[in-house]
C-alpha cells in the first residue's frame, strides 16, 4: 500500500490553475523528489499533500485514508512538513524548537528531550541546542527546523526545498539523512531545485511544469535532454556521474525566451 497518494488532484485559485489532474503515489521506504521550474506548482503540491490547502478537485490519501476526513491531530502523527520559510522570531532555544516537534505524540518532557537529542545529533545541530533561534543564520535556522520535522517521527515527511539555504556540506548531510529515513521505511517527498543533488539520492523524480506532471520515474528515466529542454527552456547535456553513476546535468545553452 502506498504511504501517500494523490488522485486527480487539482487546485485553482482566482481563475488560475496551479495544479491540474495530478496522479501520484509514494510508498514507504521511497525517496521521491519533485522538481520543475519556478511556478510549476511544486509548493502547491506539498501544501495539498500536507492538508494545508484543500484541493478544488481530486483527493489526497495518507495511509489509505482521505485526509479530508481526518483531523489535524491525527494528521500530525502521519506526516511532518518542512515549509520553505521560517517565521519564528521569539527567542526560543533551538532545543525547545526541536522539542516542539514532539507535540503530536503528547509524551513526557523526558521523551521529547530524548527524541530531540537524538535527531539533533543525527542532523549535526546538537552544537546549536542552547543557541537562541532568532540569532542563527538562515541556513542554521533551516537545519534546526529540519531537526524539528524529524523529531515528529512520522511515516511520511514532506519538505519544501530542504537544502535551499544550506552550504555544500549540510546539503549532503540533509540529503543523506533523508536517504537514511527512506531506507528505514519512511516515505519522503522533497521539493528540490538542485537536480544533480536530487539525482544522486532519490528513488524517483517527478517533473512538474505548469501544474501538470511532465515525467515520473527514476532519475535515469526522467533526466533526458529533450524533457529538460522543453520544461526548463535551456539546452542541457546529460552525462553519467563519474563516481555515483547517476545522471549529471550540464547546462550548455543560455536561457531562451519563448
Amino acid at each position, binding site marked *: 500500500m502506498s504511504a501517500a497518494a494523490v488522485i486527480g488532484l487539482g487546485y485553482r485559485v482566482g481563475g488560475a490553475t496551479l495544479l491540474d489532474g495530478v496522479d501520484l503515489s509514494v510508498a514507504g521506504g521511497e525517496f521521491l523528489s519533485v522538481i520543475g521550474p519556478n511556478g510549476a506548482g511544486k509548493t502547491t503540491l506539498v501544501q495539498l499533500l500536507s492538508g494545508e490547502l484543500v484541493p478544488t478537485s481530486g483527493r489526497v490519501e495518507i495511509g489509505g485514508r482521505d485526509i479530508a476526513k481526518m483531523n489535524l491531530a491525527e494528521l500530525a502523527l502521519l506526516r511532518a512538513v518542512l515549509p520553505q520559510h521560517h517565521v*519564528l522570531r521569539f527567542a526560543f*532555544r533551538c532545543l525547545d524548537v526541536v522539542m516542539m516537534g514532539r507535540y503530536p505524540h503528547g509524551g513526557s518532557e523526558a521523551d521529547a528531550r530524548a527524541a530531540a537529542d537524538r535527531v539533533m545529533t543525527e542532523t549535526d545541530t546538537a552544537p546549536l541546542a542552547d543557541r537562541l533561534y532568532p540569532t542563527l543564520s538562515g541556513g542554521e535556522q533551516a537545519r534546526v527546523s529540519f531537526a524539528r520535522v524529524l523529531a515528529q517521527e512520522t511515516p511520511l515527511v514532506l519538505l519544501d526545498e530542504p537544502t535551499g539555504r544550506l552550504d555544500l556540506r549540510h546539503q549532503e548531510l540533509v540529503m543523506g539523512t533523508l536517504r537514511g529515513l527512506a531506507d528505514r521505511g519512511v516515505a519522503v517527498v522533497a521539493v528540490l531545485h538542485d537536480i544533480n543533488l536530487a539525482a544522486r539520492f532519490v528513488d524517483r523524480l517527478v517533473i512538474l511544469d505548469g501544474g501538470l506532471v511532465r515525467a515520473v520515474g527514476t532519475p535515469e528515466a526522467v533526466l533526458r535532454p529533450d524533457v529538460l529542454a522543453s520544461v526548463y527552456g535551456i539546452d542541457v547535456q546529460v552525462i553519467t556521474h563519474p563516481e555515483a553513476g547517476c545522471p549529471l546535468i550540464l547546462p550548455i545553452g543560455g536561457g531562451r525566451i519563448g
Partner: protein
Amino acid sequence: MWRIPVVVLFGGLVMGLIGATGLALGMGAVEISPAQVFAILLDHLGVDTATGFSSTQDAVLWSIRLPRVMLGIAVGGALGVAGAAFQGIFRNPLADSHLIGISSGAALGTVVSILVFGGVLGSFAGPAGGIVGGLGAGVTVYLLARHEGRTEVVTLVLAGLAVAAITGAGASFLSVAADDARLGSVLFYSLGSLAVATWDLLWVTLPFVAVAVVLLPVAARRLDLLLLGEREAAHLGVDVERTRMAVVALATAAVGASVAAVGAIGFVGLLVPHGVRLVAGPGHRVLLPASAIGGAALLVLTDVVARTVALPFEVPIGLLTAIIGGPVFLLLLGRTRREHGGWG
C-alpha cells in the same frame, strides 16, 4: 545565554507581590504598621490579638485599602496575562491590549452599557459592556490586519491606533456629554484609577480575571507552537482558529472587565511579559502565570506611588505606567531592531 531558573523567577515574583501588598496596606495618610495590618485582618476572621489598633485604622484598611489592593492584584494580573496571551496569539511582542485598541474599545463599551443598560444589569453593566466593547475593537483590528492568512504587524499596530483613537474619543465624549455620576470623570477611562475600588467592584471583576488566569495556561503549549507560524502549528496538530478564538475571548474578557472597573491602564501588558521573556524565555507555560503575578505586583506597587507621591492628591495610575512604560517600549523597539532587523 543567561536565563534564571523557574523556581527563582516565581519565588521572586511572589515575594515582590507580597512586599507590594504589604506596602500598599500599610502606607498612606493613615499609617498602619505590619503588626496592626495582621491584627485587623485576623480580627475580621474572628481572631483576637494583643496588638492594638484604632477604629479609623480598621475602617481604612478593611473598607478602603484591602479592596483596592485586591482589585489592583486582579487588574494587574489580568493586564499581565492578557498582554502575554495577545503577544503570543498575534506572534508580535508589541501587541498589548492598549496598543491594539481593546482597552479603548472596552472603555467605550463600558460607558455605553452603563448609560443604556445600567438600570437593568446593575453593577454587571460595566463589565458586560467592557467585554463586548473590547471584543468588538479586537475583532475589528484583527480583521483589518489579516491578509492572505497572515497577520501584518504594521497594519495591526496602525489599525489598533485608529480604533483606539476613535473608541477612546467616543468614550470621553459620552462621559462629558452624558454628565452621569455613574461614569466618573473623563480622565478615568483614559488614565485609570484604583480609587474607585470597593468589595462589590472586586466581586464583579474578579470572576472574569480568574477564569482567564486559570484557563489561558491550558493553551500554553499551543501558543508556543503558534509562534513557529500558523502553518507549522497546524502541521503539528493545533487547531489554530479555535485556539485563537478561545485565547482572544479569555484575554479580552479579563481586560474588558478590568477596564470597566478601573479604566484603561496602559503598558502593564507590554512591560511585564517582555520583562519575563527577557529573563525566562518566551515559553508560555512560564510566561503566562509569571506575567499574571508580575502584572499584579507592578500594578499594586505603582498604585502605592500614585496615591502617596503627591499627598493629599492622587496621580492617575495610567500616567505613572506611561512614564515608565513609554521609555521601556522605545528600548524594546531598539532591541528588536538590533536582534533581527525590526518588524518591517
